[in-house]
């Protein structure tokens, strides 16, 4: 009987002593802690994707409270989270807008290959072999390093070229970082018209490398009613601040490389392969 009492007493006392010590220690070692950090952490998505540039949501919340990051720092949460965070911080949310990723290449199967690449099936590896197997120096390699990097299932390789699912994309930027060609950029979600090409070579050269490469024919620039398109380095470029998403350029582009996401049905019908398809043998 005394054994039991001893055992209970000893463990009870040990527990009580440790408990008291810990309680005491928590007072002594109390660290000033801004409770807004916890509140913001509660509002953030909690995926710890690192899209904000910090190690995780906790670090992001800390940075926001310390003023090192904007209230709209979280690209995943978008405006909804930004306004909640702004409320916690007691500031006005300075109009953040939703961004999405866009792939500046639409070549894929329509681009010419220099040789059959049979190595490691990642873009980074393919990018290191003889200037890639694609004839175009700025072609999507289609091995889907961006797909692997995406935590939101928002980017897929279709017909040999990566394509972003605008509804799922949260603009965390993981795909852009994974693309060895740097073809992916974050763009405003309201933007619907894109010139999906990055090739800056001369038109004649591009013609031999890709059915849908920009040959700098300047048709789009001439037809654009809001003068939003300029030709730089043999490549058409849209100024998104001027663009009204009218889609004129997409209809006039002879190479059909200007993507108008608003005009889905028209895009669904593939452009007739009237473009002078370059024979694969012509490459190097």
């Amino acid at each position: 009987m005394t054994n039991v009492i001893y055992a209970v007493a000893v463990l009870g006392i040990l527990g009580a002593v440790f408990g008291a010590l810990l309680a005491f220690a928590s007072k002594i070692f109390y660290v000033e802690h801004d409770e807004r950090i916890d509140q913001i952490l509660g509002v953030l998505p909690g995926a710890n994707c690192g899209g904000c540039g910090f190690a995780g949501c906790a670090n992001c919340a800390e940075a926001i409270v310390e003023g090192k990051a904007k209230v709209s720092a979280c690209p995943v949460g978008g405006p909804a989270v930004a306004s909640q965070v702004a409320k916690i911080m007691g500031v006005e949310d300075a109009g953040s807008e939703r961004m999405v990723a866009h792939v500046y290449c639409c070549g894929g199967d329509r681009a010419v290959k220099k040789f059959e690449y049979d190595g490691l099936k990642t873009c980074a590896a393919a990018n290191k072999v003889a200037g890639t197997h694609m004839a175009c120096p700025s072609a999507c390699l289609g091995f889907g390093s961006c797909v692997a990097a995406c935590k939101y299932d928002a980017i897929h390789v279709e017909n040999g070229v990566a394509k972003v699912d605008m509804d799922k994309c949260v603009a965390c930027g993981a795909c852009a970082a994974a693309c060895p060609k740097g073809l992916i950029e974050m763009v405003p979600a309201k933007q619907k018209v894109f010139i999906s090409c990055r090739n800056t070579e001369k038109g004649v050269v591009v013609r031999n490398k890709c059915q849908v490469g920009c040959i700098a024919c300047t048709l789009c620039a001439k037809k654009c009613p809001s003068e939003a398109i300029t030709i730089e380095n043999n490549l058409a470029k849209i100024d998104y601040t001027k663009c009204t998403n009218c889609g004129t350029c997409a209809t006039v582009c002879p190479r059909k490389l200007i993507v108008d996401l608003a005009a889905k049905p028209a895009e669904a019908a593939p452009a007739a392969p009237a473009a002078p398809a370059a024979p694969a043998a012509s490459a190097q």
Partner: protein
Amino acid sequence: MDAAKLLDIMLGAILINNFIFSQFLGICPFMGVSKKTDTAAGMGMAVIFVMGLASAICWVINRFVLVALGLQYLQTLAYILVIAALVQFVEMFLKKAVPSLYSALGIYLPLITTNCAVLGVVLLNTQNNYNFIESVVYGVTGGIGFLIAIVLFASIREKLRFADYPKAFEGFPIALVTAGLLALAFMGFSGMSIPW
């Protein structure tokens, strides 16, 4: 003699009876926190720290409370209590006193509460009748053994990402196979002893 025994304990804890590879204690953090070498090293450092402290405190509790009252059968229970409280305390202390160390080890400290290698080391101290210094040495070197094991494993796992193995082995299966091979390699130390 004393120095020789200490050396024996050290060598035993680090290589011959490595906690991970020969005693198979602390496998959970070993598998869980070994995806990157630097986090693995952080975990290892935290384990060294906690194992050393736990060995010292548990020795004192055992000698002056449990043995004195003839309550040795309460060792496991009392040690768990000590370890849990210790880890909590260390976490609080580091947060206040050494914030840089806390941010480096912070997330691993609570994990150590559930690391059975720590409980293993204090129980083995009692089982082997180590004195205070021997206990602390065993605790610290046991932690060093854990550090070596987890860093070795993590660096292999980092390389494994580029290896071409069957899809069925992706993730944990290949990690377990690797751990098994590493344990086999560590068996090579089993014949070692110090000839004094």
